[in-house]
Protein backbone atom coordinates (compact mmCIF):
# COMPACT_ATOMS: atom_id res chain seq x y z
CA UNK A 1 0.00 0.00 0.00
CA UNK A 2 1.15 3.51 -0.74
CA UNK A 3 0.07 6.38 1.46
CA UNK A 4 -0.21 9.92 0.14
CA UNK A 5 -0.82 12.76 2.57
CA UNK A 6 -2.11 16.10 1.41
CA UNK A 7 -2.60 19.27 3.44
CA UNK A 8 -4.07 22.67 2.59
CA UNK A 9 -1.28 25.18 2.05
CA UNK A 10 -0.25 26.63 5.40
CA UNK A 11 -0.77 30.22 4.31
CA UNK A 12 -4.38 29.56 3.32
CA UNK A 13 -7.31 29.66 5.67
CA UNK A 14 -8.60 26.17 6.47
CA UNK A 15 -12.23 26.83 7.45
CA UNK A 16 -12.88 23.17 8.36
CA UNK A 17 -9.89 23.13 10.69
CA UNK A 18 -10.96 26.46 12.12
CA UNK A 19 -14.42 25.03 12.90
CA UNK A 20 -12.85 22.10 14.78
CA UNK A 21 -10.54 24.48 16.65
CA UNK A 22 -13.65 26.38 17.77
CA UNK A 23 -15.37 23.15 18.87
CA UNK A 24 -12.33 22.12 20.94
CA UNK A 25 -12.33 25.48 22.67
CA UNK A 26 -16.04 25.17 23.43
CA UNK A 27 -15.39 21.74 24.98
CA UNK A 28 -12.80 23.26 27.26
CA UNK A 29 -9.73 21.87 25.48
CA UNK A 30 -7.85 25.12 25.66
CA UNK A 31 -4.47 23.41 25.18
CA UNK A 32 -4.95 23.36 21.40
CA UNK A 33 -4.48 26.60 19.58
CA UNK A 34 -5.13 25.28 16.10
CA UNK A 35 -6.29 22.35 13.97
CA UNK A 36 -5.66 21.86 10.28
CA UNK A 37 -7.41 19.15 8.30
CA UNK A 38 -5.84 17.34 5.38
CA UNK A 39 -6.36 14.14 3.43
CA UNK A 40 -4.77 10.71 3.48
CA UNK A 41 -4.99 8.51 0.39
CA UNK A 42 -4.24 4.77 0.57
CA UNK A 43 -3.44 3.25 -2.81
CA UNK A 44 -3.32 -0.52 -2.99
CA UNK A 45 -1.53 -2.59 -5.60
CA UNK A 46 -1.19 -6.28 -6.39
CA UNK A 47 2.40 -7.20 -5.67
CA UNK A 48 5.28 -5.21 -4.26
CA UNK A 49 5.55 -1.44 -4.15
CA UNK A 50 8.38 -0.91 -6.58
CA UNK A 51 10.24 2.31 -7.29
CA UNK A 52 8.33 2.51 -10.57
CA UNK A 53 5.03 2.36 -8.68
CA UNK A 54 6.21 5.02 -6.26
CA UNK A 55 7.26 7.22 -9.17
CA UNK A 56 3.83 6.79 -10.71
CA UNK A 57 2.21 7.77 -7.40
CA UNK A 58 4.44 10.84 -7.11
CA UNK A 59 3.18 12.00 -10.49
CA UNK A 60 -0.43 11.23 -9.63
CA UNK A 61 -0.14 13.00 -6.30
CA UNK A 62 0.81 16.28 -7.95
CA UNK A 63 -1.52 15.92 -10.93
CA UNK A 64 -4.70 14.55 -9.46
CA UNK A 65 -4.71 13.71 -5.76
CA UNK A 66 -3.66 17.23 -4.80
CA UNK A 67 -4.27 20.58 -6.44
CA UNK A 68 -0.93 22.23 -5.85
CA UNK A 69 -2.48 25.67 -6.24
CA UNK A 70 -4.24 25.20 -2.90
CA UNK A 71 -2.65 22.09 -1.36
CA UNK A 72 0.75 20.54 -0.66
CA UNK A 73 1.67 16.88 -0.93
CA UNK A 74 3.39 16.46 2.43
CA UNK A 75 4.29 12.75 2.32
CA UNK A 76 4.35 9.73 0.04
CA UNK A 77 5.42 6.40 1.50
CA UNK A 78 4.93 2.68 1.24
CA UNK A 79 3.18 1.12 4.21
CA UNK A 80 2.57 -2.59 4.64
CA UNK A 81 -0.65 -4.18 5.73
CA UNK A 82 -0.10 -6.13 8.97
CA UNK A 83 0.55 -9.48 7.19
CA UNK A 84 3.33 -8.25 4.99
CA UNK A 85 4.54 -5.51 7.23
CA UNK A 86 8.02 -7.05 7.38
CA UNK A 87 8.41 -6.70 3.69
CA UNK A 88 8.15 -2.96 3.92
CA UNK A 89 9.18 -2.54 7.57
CA UNK A 90 6.80 0.39 7.62
CA UNK A 91 9.66 2.44 6.35
CA UNK A 92 8.99 5.63 4.58
CA UNK A 93 10.22 5.07 1.10
CA UNK A 94 10.11 8.34 -0.64
CA UNK A 95 9.04 11.25 1.49
CA UNK A 96 8.58 14.28 -0.64
CA UNK A 97 8.89 17.92 0.27
Amino acid at each position, binding site marked *: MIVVEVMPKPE*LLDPAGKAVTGALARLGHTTFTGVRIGKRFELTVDGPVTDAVLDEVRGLAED*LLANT*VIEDVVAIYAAGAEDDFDEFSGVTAGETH
Partner: protein
Amino acid sequence: MAARIGVVTFPGSLDDRDALRAVRIAGAEPVSLWHADTDLQGVDAVVLPGGFSYGDYLRCGAIAAQARIMREVISAAHAGMPVLGICNGFQVLVESHLLPGGLIRNDHGSFVCRDQRLRVENASTAWTNGFAAGEEFVAPLKNGEGGYIASEETIRELEGEGRVVFRYVDVNPNGSMNDIAGITNARGNVVGLMPHPEHAVEPGFGPDLPSAMRSGVDGLRLFTSAIAALLSV
Protein backbone atom coordinates in the same frame (compact mmCIF):
# COMPACT_ATOMS: atom_id res chain seq x y z
CA MET B 1 -28.26 29.98 -38.72
CA ALA B 2 -28.50 30.24 -34.95
CA ALA B 3 -25.36 29.73 -32.92
CA ARG B 4 -25.19 26.33 -31.25
CA ILE B 5 -24.14 26.40 -27.61
CA GLY B 6 -23.45 23.14 -25.79
CA VAL B 7 -24.00 22.49 -22.09
CA VAL B 8 -22.08 19.59 -20.54
CA THR B 9 -23.85 17.33 -18.06
CA PHE B 10 -21.58 15.57 -15.58
CA PRO B 11 -22.87 13.09 -12.99
CA GLY B 12 -24.06 15.48 -10.29
CA SER B 13 -24.60 18.55 -12.48
CA LEU B 14 -27.69 20.43 -11.30
CA ASP B 15 -28.03 23.57 -13.38
CA ASP B 16 -27.51 22.08 -16.82
CA ARG B 17 -31.21 22.40 -17.69
CA ASP B 18 -31.27 26.02 -16.55
CA ALA B 19 -28.20 26.74 -18.67
CA LEU B 20 -29.80 25.10 -21.72
CA ARG B 21 -32.91 27.20 -21.12
CA ALA B 22 -30.83 30.38 -20.82
CA VAL B 23 -29.14 29.55 -24.13
CA ARG B 24 -32.54 29.11 -25.80
CA ILE B 25 -33.97 32.34 -24.34
CA ALA B 26 -30.85 34.19 -25.52
CA GLY B 27 -31.60 33.05 -29.07
CA ALA B 28 -29.11 30.26 -29.63
CA GLU B 29 -29.72 26.58 -30.17
CA PRO B 30 -29.02 24.64 -26.95
CA VAL B 31 -27.15 21.34 -27.35
CA SER B 32 -26.90 18.79 -24.53
CA LEU B 33 -23.43 17.31 -24.19
CA TRP B 34 -22.60 14.30 -22.02
CA HIS B 35 -19.43 13.96 -19.94
CA ALA B 36 -18.45 10.71 -21.67
CA ASP B 37 -18.92 12.11 -25.19
CA THR B 38 -15.87 12.07 -27.42
CA ASP B 39 -16.84 15.09 -29.54
CA LEU B 40 -18.52 18.45 -29.10
CA GLN B 41 -21.16 17.81 -31.78
CA GLY B 42 -20.02 20.85 -33.71
CA VAL B 43 -21.12 23.41 -31.13
CA ASP B 44 -19.81 26.98 -31.33
CA ALA B 45 -19.48 27.52 -27.57
CA VAL B 46 -19.63 25.47 -24.38
CA VAL B 47 -21.11 26.08 -20.93
CA LEU B 48 -19.95 24.03 -17.94
CA PRO B 49 -22.90 24.26 -15.55
CA GLY B 50 -23.29 24.45 -11.79
CA GLY B 51 -23.95 21.59 -9.43
CA PHE B 52 -21.92 19.07 -7.49
CA SER B 53 -20.22 16.92 -10.10
CA TYR B 54 -19.10 13.62 -8.61
CA GLY B 55 -20.44 14.75 -5.25
CA ASP B 56 -17.55 17.23 -4.93
CA TYR B 57 -15.39 14.20 -4.07
CA LEU B 58 -11.62 14.72 -4.02
CA ARG B 59 -12.04 18.47 -4.68
CA CYS B 60 -14.88 20.40 -6.30
CA GLY B 61 -14.58 19.91 -10.07
CA ALA B 62 -11.46 17.75 -9.84
CA ILE B 63 -12.94 14.53 -11.19
CA ALA B 64 -15.10 16.28 -13.79
CA ALA B 65 -11.92 17.95 -15.06
CA GLN B 66 -10.72 14.45 -16.01
CA ALA B 67 -13.94 13.56 -17.89
CA ARG B 68 -13.52 12.41 -21.48
CA ILE B 69 -15.31 15.40 -22.99
CA MET B 70 -12.99 17.80 -21.15
CA ARG B 71 -10.17 16.82 -23.51
CA GLU B 72 -12.27 18.26 -26.34
CA VAL B 73 -13.35 21.30 -24.31
CA ILE B 74 -9.74 22.08 -23.36
CA SER B 75 -8.45 21.84 -26.91
CA ALA B 76 -11.40 23.89 -28.25
CA ALA B 77 -10.78 26.51 -25.56
CA HIS B 78 -7.12 26.73 -26.57
CA ALA B 79 -8.31 27.24 -30.15
CA GLY B 80 -10.47 30.18 -29.06
CA MET B 81 -13.94 28.71 -28.58
CA PRO B 82 -16.01 30.63 -26.00
CA VAL B 83 -16.25 28.56 -22.80
CA LEU B 84 -18.21 29.64 -19.72
CA GLY B 85 -17.91 27.89 -16.36
CA ILE B 86 -20.60 28.69 -13.81
CA CYS B 87 -20.05 27.81 -10.13
CA ASN B 88 -19.07 24.11 -10.27
CA GLY B 89 -18.19 24.79 -13.91
CA PHE B 90 -15.75 27.50 -12.72
CA GLN B 91 -14.25 24.92 -10.36
CA VAL B 92 -13.89 22.53 -13.30
CA LEU B 93 -12.11 25.26 -15.29
CA VAL B 94 -9.53 25.89 -12.55
CA GLU B 95 -9.03 22.15 -12.03
CA SER B 96 -8.50 21.86 -15.81
CA HIS B 97 -5.94 24.69 -15.63
CA LEU B 98 -7.88 26.66 -18.24
CA LEU B 99 -8.09 29.38 -15.58
CA PRO B 100 -5.57 30.08 -12.80
CA GLY B 101 -6.08 29.91 -9.05
CA GLY B 102 -8.40 27.77 -6.98
CA LEU B 103 -11.69 27.79 -5.12
CA ILE B 104 -11.80 26.83 -1.47
CA ARG B 105 -14.42 26.55 1.26
CA ASN B 106 -16.10 29.85 2.11
CA ASP B 107 -14.13 31.63 4.82
CA HIS B 108 -17.15 31.73 7.17
CA GLY B 109 -17.62 27.96 6.77
CA SER B 110 -21.25 28.11 5.66
CA PHE B 111 -23.07 27.57 2.41
CA VAL B 112 -24.27 30.90 1.08
CA CYS B 113 -27.37 31.53 -1.03
CA ARG B 114 -28.24 35.11 -1.92
CA ASP B 115 -29.01 37.54 -4.69
CA GLN B 116 -25.56 39.04 -5.24
CA ARG B 117 -24.65 42.39 -6.77
CA LEU B 118 -21.70 42.19 -9.17
CA ARG B 119 -19.65 44.71 -11.09
CA VAL B 120 -18.53 43.90 -14.63
CA GLU B 121 -14.84 44.84 -14.60
CA ASN B 122 -14.00 43.59 -18.07
CA ALA B 123 -16.61 44.09 -20.79
CA SER B 124 -14.51 42.81 -23.66
CA THR B 125 -14.60 39.04 -23.08
CA ALA B 126 -16.62 36.66 -25.24
CA TRP B 127 -19.17 36.46 -22.41
CA THR B 128 -19.38 40.13 -21.32
CA ASN B 129 -19.23 42.23 -24.49
CA GLY B 130 -22.92 43.13 -24.03
CA PHE B 131 -22.18 44.99 -20.79
CA ALA B 132 -20.53 48.35 -20.23
CA ALA B 133 -17.35 48.27 -18.14
CA GLY B 134 -18.26 49.16 -14.56
CA GLU B 135 -21.90 48.20 -15.01
CA GLU B 136 -23.50 46.41 -12.06
CA PHE B 137 -26.11 43.67 -12.02
CA VAL B 138 -27.59 41.09 -9.68
CA ALA B 139 -27.36 37.31 -10.02
CA PRO B 140 -28.15 34.46 -7.63
CA LEU B 141 -25.14 33.05 -5.81
CA LYS B 142 -25.17 29.68 -4.07
CA ASN B 143 -22.00 27.93 -3.02
CA GLY B 144 -20.12 26.35 -0.17
CA GLU B 145 -16.69 26.44 -1.76
CA GLY B 146 -16.56 29.69 -3.66
CA GLY B 147 -13.61 31.43 -2.07
CA TYR B 148 -11.31 32.42 -4.92
CA ILE B 149 -7.63 32.20 -4.07
CA ALA B 150 -4.41 32.46 -6.04
CA SER B 151 -0.78 33.27 -5.44
CA GLU B 152 0.14 36.95 -5.05
CA GLU B 153 1.84 36.76 -8.43
CA THR B 154 -1.29 35.39 -10.13
CA ILE B 155 -3.52 38.00 -8.47
CA ARG B 156 -1.14 40.73 -9.62
CA GLU B 157 -1.21 39.31 -13.15
CA LEU B 158 -5.02 39.04 -13.22
CA GLU B 159 -5.48 42.58 -11.90
CA GLY B 160 -2.73 44.02 -14.11
CA GLU B 161 -4.10 42.45 -17.29
CA GLY B 162 -7.74 43.29 -16.58
CA ARG B 163 -8.61 39.62 -16.28
CA VAL B 164 -10.87 40.05 -13.27
CA VAL B 165 -14.21 39.98 -15.10
CA PHE B 166 -16.67 40.20 -12.20
CA ARG B 167 -16.23 41.58 -8.70
CA TYR B 168 -18.57 41.25 -5.72
CA VAL B 169 -20.18 44.56 -4.71
CA ASP B 170 -21.46 45.48 -1.20
CA VAL B 171 -20.75 42.04 0.28
CA ASN B 172 -17.92 39.58 -0.25
CA PRO B 173 -19.98 36.43 0.28
CA ASN B 174 -17.22 33.81 0.50
CA GLY B 175 -13.89 35.41 1.34
CA SER B 176 -12.65 35.59 -2.26
CA MET B 177 -9.36 37.47 -2.65
CA ASN B 178 -9.85 41.01 -4.00
CA ASP B 179 -13.64 40.37 -4.04
CA ILE B 180 -13.11 38.34 -7.22
CA ALA B 181 -16.32 36.72 -8.51
CA GLY B 182 -15.11 35.75 -11.97
CA ILE B 183 -12.00 35.77 -14.16
CA THR B 184 -10.96 35.15 -17.75
CA ASN B 185 -7.96 33.75 -19.60
CA ALA B 186 -5.55 35.99 -21.49
CA ARG B 187 -7.49 35.60 -24.73
CA GLY B 188 -10.86 36.44 -23.16
CA ASN B 189 -12.73 33.42 -24.54
CA VAL B 190 -12.77 31.38 -21.31
CA VAL B 191 -14.68 32.90 -18.38
CA GLY B 192 -15.49 31.38 -15.01
CA LEU B 193 -17.65 32.85 -12.27
CA MET B 194 -19.27 31.65 -9.05
CA PRO B 195 -22.64 33.50 -9.37
CA HIS B 196 -25.35 32.05 -11.62
CA PRO B 197 -26.27 34.20 -14.64
CA GLU B 198 -28.43 31.35 -16.00
CA HIS B 199 -30.81 31.90 -13.06
CA ALA B 200 -31.31 35.54 -14.08
CA VAL B 201 -32.76 35.30 -17.58
CA GLU B 202 -36.55 35.44 -17.32
CA PRO B 203 -38.93 37.81 -15.48
CA GLY B 204 -40.65 36.06 -12.58
CA PHE B 205 -37.79 33.61 -12.05
CA GLY B 206 -34.77 35.85 -11.53
CA PRO B 207 -33.19 37.49 -8.49
CA ASP B 208 -35.02 40.15 -6.50
CA LEU B 209 -34.35 43.72 -7.57
CA PRO B 210 -35.31 46.86 -5.63
CA SER B 211 -37.93 47.57 -8.32
CA ALA B 212 -39.67 44.19 -8.20
CA MET B 213 -39.28 40.69 -6.82
CA ARG B 214 -37.69 38.04 -9.04
CA SER B 215 -37.34 40.48 -11.91
CA GLY B 216 -33.57 40.29 -12.53
CA VAL B 217 -32.76 39.21 -16.08
CA ASP B 218 -29.30 40.69 -16.62
CA GLY B 219 -27.65 37.26 -16.57
CA LEU B 220 -29.05 36.76 -20.03
CA ARG B 221 -26.49 39.18 -21.39
CA LEU B 222 -23.64 36.72 -20.82
CA PHE B 223 -25.32 34.39 -23.28
CA THR B 224 -26.26 37.11 -25.80
CA SER B 225 -22.67 38.36 -25.52
CA ALA B 226 -21.38 34.94 -26.58
CA ILE B 227 -23.76 34.90 -29.55
CA ALA B 228 -22.51 38.35 -30.56
CA ALA B 229 -18.90 37.21 -30.16
CA LEU B 230 -19.56 34.23 -32.43
CA LEU B 231 -21.19 36.40 -35.09
CA SER B 232 -18.27 38.83 -35.08
CA VAL B 233 -15.69 36.14 -35.79
